[in-house]
C-alpha cells in the first residue's frame, strides 16, 4: 500500500509535468467540446445540442485518455527502458501497473468534471442527476478502455508510430459511434461498424444516464458488451504485454 501510494503520487506528477500528455490527453477533448458547442446549436434528440455533445465528449475522453493516453505512456516507457528498469526494483509489477491505471483514471475523472463545468459555463448544461450511476458507468468504460490500451501496446513496435496508430483507431471510432454528433443519417455500413465498437456502448450508457434520467442497470446489453471488450483486452494484454524494448 505504501508503494502504491508512492507510485500513484509520482504518476500524477509525471502526467501533469509532461506537456504532451497534459495537452493531448487531458486538454484536447475539452477544447474539442468548446469548439463543437460553438458550432452546433439547436437540438439533438429532443435535447439541447450541447448536452449530447457533452455526453459524446466524455465518451471520447474515456477512449482518448484511458486507451490512447495509457498506451502511449506505456509504449514510450517500454521503448526507452523505463519499464525494464522498474522491474529491477522491489516495486511489484502488479502494484506498478495498478498505480499507472488508477492515475489515468484520476486524469479522466478531472477531465469529466472539467467538461461538466465548462458545459455549465458556456451552455448552461445541467449537472448529472444520477451521479452514482454515471460514476459506475464511466469507471466501467474507462476500465474497459484501459484494458484495451494495455492490450494494444503489444502490437505497437515503436514510440514514433504509437500516437499515429492510436489516433487512427480513436478518432474514427469516436466519429462512427457518435461522439461528435448523431449517427442516424450515416450510411448503413458505417453504422454497422460503429455498432461493434466499445465506445458506442459507453456512449449509450452515458446518454441514457445523463440525457434520459436512466440508471446504470437500465442498459444491460451495453454493460455486457463493454465488459466483454474489457475482458477481451485483459486476455490479450496478459499474452502480449512486454516490459522490455524491442531487441536491437
Amino acid at each position: 500500500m505504501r508503494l502504491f501510494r508512492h507510485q500513484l503520487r509520482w504518476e500524477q506528477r509525471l502526467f501533469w509535468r509532461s506537456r504532451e500528455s497534459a495537452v493531448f490527453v487531458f486538454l484536447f477533448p475539452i477544447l474539442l467540446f468548446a469548439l463543437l458547442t460553438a458550432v452546433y446549436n439547436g437540438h439533438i434528440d429532443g435535447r439541447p445540442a450541447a448536452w449530447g455533445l457533452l455526453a459524446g465528449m466524455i465518451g471520447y475522453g474515456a477512449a482518448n485518455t484511458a486507451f490512447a493516453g495509457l498506451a502511449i505512456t506505456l509504449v514510450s516507457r517500454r521503448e526507452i527502458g523505463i519499464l525494464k528498469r522498474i522491474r529491477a526494483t522491489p516495486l511489484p509489477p502488479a502494484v506498478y501497473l495498478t498505480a499507472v491505471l488508477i492515475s489515468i483514471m484520476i486524469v479522466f475523472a478531472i477531465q469529466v468534471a472539467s467538461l461538466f463545468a465548462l458545459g455549465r459555463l458556456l451552455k448552461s448544461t445541467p449537472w448529472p442527476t444520477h451521479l452514482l450511476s454515471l460514476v459506475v458507468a464511466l469507471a466501467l468504460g474507462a476500465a474497459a478502455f484501459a484494458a484495451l490500451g494495455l492490450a494494444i501496446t503489444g502490437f505497437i513496435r515503436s514510440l514514433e508510430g504509437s500516437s499515429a496508430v492510436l489516433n487512427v483507431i480513436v478518432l474514427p471510432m469516436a466519429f462512427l459511434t457518435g461522439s461528435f454528433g448523431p449517427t442516424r443519417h450515416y450510411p448503413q455500413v458505417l453504422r454497422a461498424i460503429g455498432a461493434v465498437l466499445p465506445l458506442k456502448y459507453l456512449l449509450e450508457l452515458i446518454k441514457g444516464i445523463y440525457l434520459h434520467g436512466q440508471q446504470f442497470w437500465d442498459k444491460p446489453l451495453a454493460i455486457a458488451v463493454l465488459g466483454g471488450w474489457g475482458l477481451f483486452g485483459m486476455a490479450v494484454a496478459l499474452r502480449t504485454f512486454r516490459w522490455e524494448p524491442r531487441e536491437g
Partner: protein
Amino acid sequence: MSAISVRDLRKSYGTYEALRGISFEIKEGEVFGLLGPNGAGKTTTIEILEGYRTRDDGDVEVLGFDPERAGSAFRERIGVVLQQSQLWPNLTVAETHRMFAGYYEQPRNVDEVITLVGLDEKRDARVKTLSGGQKRRLDLGVALVGNPDLVFLDEPTTGFDLDEAEQLADRLAVLREGVIIREGTPAELTGGSNETEIRYRKDGHDVVVRTTEPTKILHKLAAEALAEGRELQGLSVRRPTLEDVYLSLTAEHQE
C-alpha cells in the same frame, strides 16, 4: 563467501547458443569485469544474474538467491545500470532519485547519493537537460539509491577504456562466443601472455618484433647495430597491456 556463483550456465536463443556453459565465482567485496566483443554473451549473462532472463541449464546463485525465482527481497539488495535505458526527461535529478528511493525499505540518503555521483550542481536540473555523461551518472545514482549489496553495470561508460577495467576490476573474465576464454586478475591476464614487444626504426621504417625471448633478441639486435656502427633508433621494449591481450584474443576470434 561468494556473492555470485555461476556453474555451467547455458542459454540459447533458438538455434543460436549465446552461452555454452560458463562458470565463475565472484567473492563479496570484489569488483569483477566481464569483457568480450559484441555478441559474446555479456549482456545475456548479466541479465540472467539480474533475473531478467531465464537460463536453459546450469546453476546460478546471486546473494544466495536464484535470480530466476527471486522476488522483492532479492531486488532490495541489487542495483542495476542497464546497457541502454533512459529515465523520465521531465523529472529533476533529485526527483528521479527520490522516486526510486521510495521503492526500497532502507534507501540511502538521496542528497548523499547525488553528491557521490557528482551531480550536486545538477540537483534541480531536468533530466532532459543533462549531458550524456551526466545521464550515465544519474543511472548510477539510481542504481545506488536503494543501498544495494551488489551493483550490476552493463557497459557503464561509452567507449569503455580497457585501461579503466584494468584499474577498476579486481578480477576479469574474457568472454568469446559464449565461452570464458581467459580469467584472472588484470596482472595475471597481461602476465599470462609471455610475449614482449620490441620496436625500433631501421632505414626509416618501423620494425616490430614480438618475442617470448626478449633478452636474446635484444642482445642480437644490439650486437648487429654495434657492429654496423648505427643506433637502434626509437627503441622501445614493453610488456603487453590489457588492451593488447584483449585485442589479440578478439583477433583470434575473427580468424
